[in-house]
């Protein structure tokens, strides 16, 4: 037997890992809370967890339309990294990466966090300029990213074809040493168990159908659901996928479009791929899951939609490209494909904080980088809710930045396009 993931096995034996799954406590729902969070994904649950643990606020409900982590938290490609291009984003994701590192120790739940390193390939001089700029900006911000030539790439990723099948030659790469992966639904469960054991309510299968308001244009006072209203001091939208519809209930209009993003996993690869390998120019990336499958993403449909069916065109397109770079993938089989709904903002950066409507906060725009942001996003929004002040870490990510001509264009840091 080949041990694909010696790091995880050393940290947690299989029995220990299962044993370290903390139970989620299911409470009888009330009809009023201090804080109602709409959306039981990573961001919503993390916000509830940090409200309870950092601020002692436990009169909180997380209201989820389906089951927790049924949306993008359970559909992303589980990569944790901070090699962004603009200082505000690097600072934010670097903090998130550090919170992830401590999450197993803090919650006692195994999330299979594992440091791998993220190799971001360039296939042209233009691409190399982008990676060089990224490395310099990362190093200036204290993030460990180094520039590699083709030989350096080959040393880290021995399976790579540096000619890219004669079509996508590898000019070099940036190597983000601290990048990691973690088991995504376990992250949601860790936050859910930590929050509910302290008294937070998680209410599943309760779609929100409207917002309660103090007259038109007035404060948001809670949410309407099929099973009756739930009153709240503050409502946070942590919705993924249907955020434009929820915000519209408060007449908040968002610079967000929702695109399905496609991914697949193959059968197990015994030889092992140590690194996360990505290419922005080709809009594809690959890493190995804890059970040994090759996890390959991702391309989103150019047209927005709310369909979670895999698109054959997208699968064909990035399967073609990734097999030029890693020829061994040609002999592997696709086991499972899926799509998640990416809320992509106009400047490719997330939106967190005020909406301009009293009592209604938002965290959105997480399309393609939401998973890695879960701890930092949750911690910062919990602080905003508890103290009424927006933490400096997320202040640049307010919705008002578009009005103030302070948009933060960072498309080059998306793993896809």
């Amino acid at each position, binding site marked *: 037997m080949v041990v694909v993931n010696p790091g995880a096995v050393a940290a947690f034996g299989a029995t220990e890992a299962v044993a370290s799954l903390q139970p989620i406590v299911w409470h009888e729902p009330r009809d009023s809370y201090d804080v109602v969070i709409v959306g039981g994904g990573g961001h919503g649950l993390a916000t509830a967890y940090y409200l309870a643990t950092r601020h002692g606020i436990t009169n909180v409900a997380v209201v989820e339309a389906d089951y927790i982590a049924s949306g993008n938290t359970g559909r992303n490609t589980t990569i944790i990294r901070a090699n962004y291009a603009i200082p505000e984003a690097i600072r934010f994701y670097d903090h998130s990466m550090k919170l992830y590192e401590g999450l197993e120790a803090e919650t006692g739940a195994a999330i299979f966090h594992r440091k791998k390193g993220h190799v971001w390939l360039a296939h042209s001089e233009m691409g190399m300029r982008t990676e060089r700029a990224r490395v310099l900006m990362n190093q200036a911000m204290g993030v460990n990213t180094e520039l590699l030539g083709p030989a350096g790439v080959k040393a880290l990723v021995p399976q790579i074809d540096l000619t890219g099948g004669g079509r996508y030659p590898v000019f070099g790469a940036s190597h983000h040493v601290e990048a990691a992966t973690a088991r995504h639904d376990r992250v949601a469960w860790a936050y859910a168990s930590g929050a509910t054991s302290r008294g937070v309510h998680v209410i599943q299968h309760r779609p929100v159908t409207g917002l309660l308001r103090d007259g038109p244009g007035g404060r948001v006072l809670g949410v309407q659901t099929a099973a009756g209203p739930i009153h709240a001091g503050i409502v946070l939208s942590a919705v993924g996928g249907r955020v434009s519809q929820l915000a519209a209930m408060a007449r908040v209009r*968002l*610079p*967000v479009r929702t695109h399905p993003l496609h991914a697949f996993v193959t059968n197990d690869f015994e030889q092992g791929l140590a690194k996360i390998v990505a290419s922005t120019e080709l809009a594809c990336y690959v890493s190995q899951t804890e059970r040994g499958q090759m996890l390959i993403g991702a391309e989103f449909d150019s047209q*927005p*939609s709310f369909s979670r069916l895999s*698109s054959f065109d997208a699968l064909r397109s990035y399967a073609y490209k990734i097999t030029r770079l890693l020829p061994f993938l040609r002999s592997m089989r696709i086991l499972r494909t899926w799509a998640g709904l990416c809320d992509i903002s106009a400047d490719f950066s997330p939106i967190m904080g005020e909406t301009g409507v009293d009592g209604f906060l938002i965290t959105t725009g997480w399309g393609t980088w939401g998973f890695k942001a879960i701890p930092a996003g949750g911690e910062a929004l919990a602080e905003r809710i508890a103290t009424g002040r927006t933490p400096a870490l997320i202040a640049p990510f307010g919705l008002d930045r578009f009005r103030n001509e302070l948009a933060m264009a960072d498309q080059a840091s998306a793993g896809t396009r």
Partner: protein
Amino acid sequence: MHTLDCPRCGRRPLDEFTFGGERRPTADWLTDPDERDFDDVWVFENPAGVATERWFHAAGCRRWLTVRRDTSVDRVLEVR
């Protein structure tokens, strides 16, 4: 959604077309001129339902089409 029925070229693969964005009027309840400018420049309606869009047949007749599409299931209803 794998194909589009171009009125000039017939049923063609989606790869030949370029998505040109949603076409929408600015919300009539927005009266403040600054708010209307913000809306025009930045906001997407992003409907989960029927959207009217522009598509460009880049690898075909190179004309702009107006497409009505149900975004909740990604299905085309009408091409003009």
